[in-house]
């Protein structure tokens, strides 16, 4: 199999380049991450990438494969056009090879106060929530913070420092939608700004790439309708 992989060595001072690899590999049933590991183990130890769970739940190995943001560990090699071109996630700074600097992404995540705010005294047992109320959270809490959506969003490319991006907004809505949370007004106040939320133009790249099948655009739409409801 043939690969073209983005390489950047921060210590050499050299400009980033694309390196070609020819790997003798039976692709049947294997994923992109398997190939990256095989390249590292047998061809080139210096190739660097992040990985952890290797089953699509930890969100470490978001990369751009043949132009699409994907999780390397759940993307089948079969069916990919060769040479397979692997690049780091777009727009974020590259630390080395396929490893990007996620600091900005995490900062946006923290900005939406991604934790339950409830100032009532804690009850003895659980706070009740009906299955229907709980179902409102489905499609929100499963986000693995891989960054595939945010880094595929043109609005994020244009204003990465001010637009929170689909992942953070999805998490923002996860707490707005939780019947146990009492800070909806503060959360909406924070988002009512020309940049943080309203840079979203419904381009929907986020929906297309999300490896968990989540829909940040829909969540952003729900935040907007709550804002409207509140204003009118």
């Amino acid at each position, binding site marked *: 199999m043939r690969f073209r992989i983005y390489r950047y060595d921060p210590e050499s001072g050299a400009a980033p380049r694309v390196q070609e690899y020819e790997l003798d590999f039976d692709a049947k049933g294997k994923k992109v991450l398997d190939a990256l590991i095989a390249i590292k183990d047998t061809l080139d130890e210096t190739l660097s990438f992040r990985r952890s769970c290797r089953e699509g739940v930890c969100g470490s190995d978001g990369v751009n494969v043949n132009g699409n943001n994907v999780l390397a560990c759940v993307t089948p090699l079969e069916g990919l056009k060769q040479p397979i071109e692997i690049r780091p996630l777009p727009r974020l700074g590259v630390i080395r090879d396929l490893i990007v600097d996620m600091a900005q992404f995490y*900062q946006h995540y923290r900005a939406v106060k991604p934790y339950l705010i409830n100032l009532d005294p804690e009850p003895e047992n659980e706070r009740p929530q009906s299955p229907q109320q709980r179902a409102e959270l489905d499609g929100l809490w499963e986000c693995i913070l891989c960054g595939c959506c945010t880094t595929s969003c043109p*609005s994020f490319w*244009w*204003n990465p*420092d*001010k637009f929170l991006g689909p992942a953070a907004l999805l998490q923002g809505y996860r707490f707005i939608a939780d019947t146990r949370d009492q800070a909806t007004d503060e959360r909406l*106040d*924070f*988002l*009512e*700004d*020309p*940049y*943080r*939320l*309203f*840079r979203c*133009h419904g381009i929907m790249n986020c929906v297309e790439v999300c490896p968990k099948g989540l829909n940040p655009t829909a969540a952003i739409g729900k935040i*907007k309708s709550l*804002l*409207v409801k509140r*204003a009118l």
Partner: protein
Amino acid sequence: MRRVGGSHRGLDMWLMQRASAVYMALFLPFFLVCALAAGPLDYAAWHGLFASPAMKVATFLFVAAMLAHAWIGLREIFIDYLHCARCTLLRLALYFAFAVLYLGCLVWTVDILWNVR
């Protein structure tokens, strides 16, 4: 890093954009029906179409909505694409320039519409 934000100007603009779009979407078919009903469109028919005060106001609102829509749309584009260190001033200047231009258009619209007797 400290960042200011939360100007609460996001929703107004977004709502205005939608509201103006809705008005335009309603007005255009209405106007088309009126125009068709007025028979063959010669100068007299076209002139007569704008004779009623209701039509004047409706048309004025349409132009106002269109200009607001256009201004907000431009503002979106400026926000998306202009963000160099010194761009804030440029952006403000552009907002202002287009606001003046569009207001001028609106005044002109009033002048045209209310000159129809």
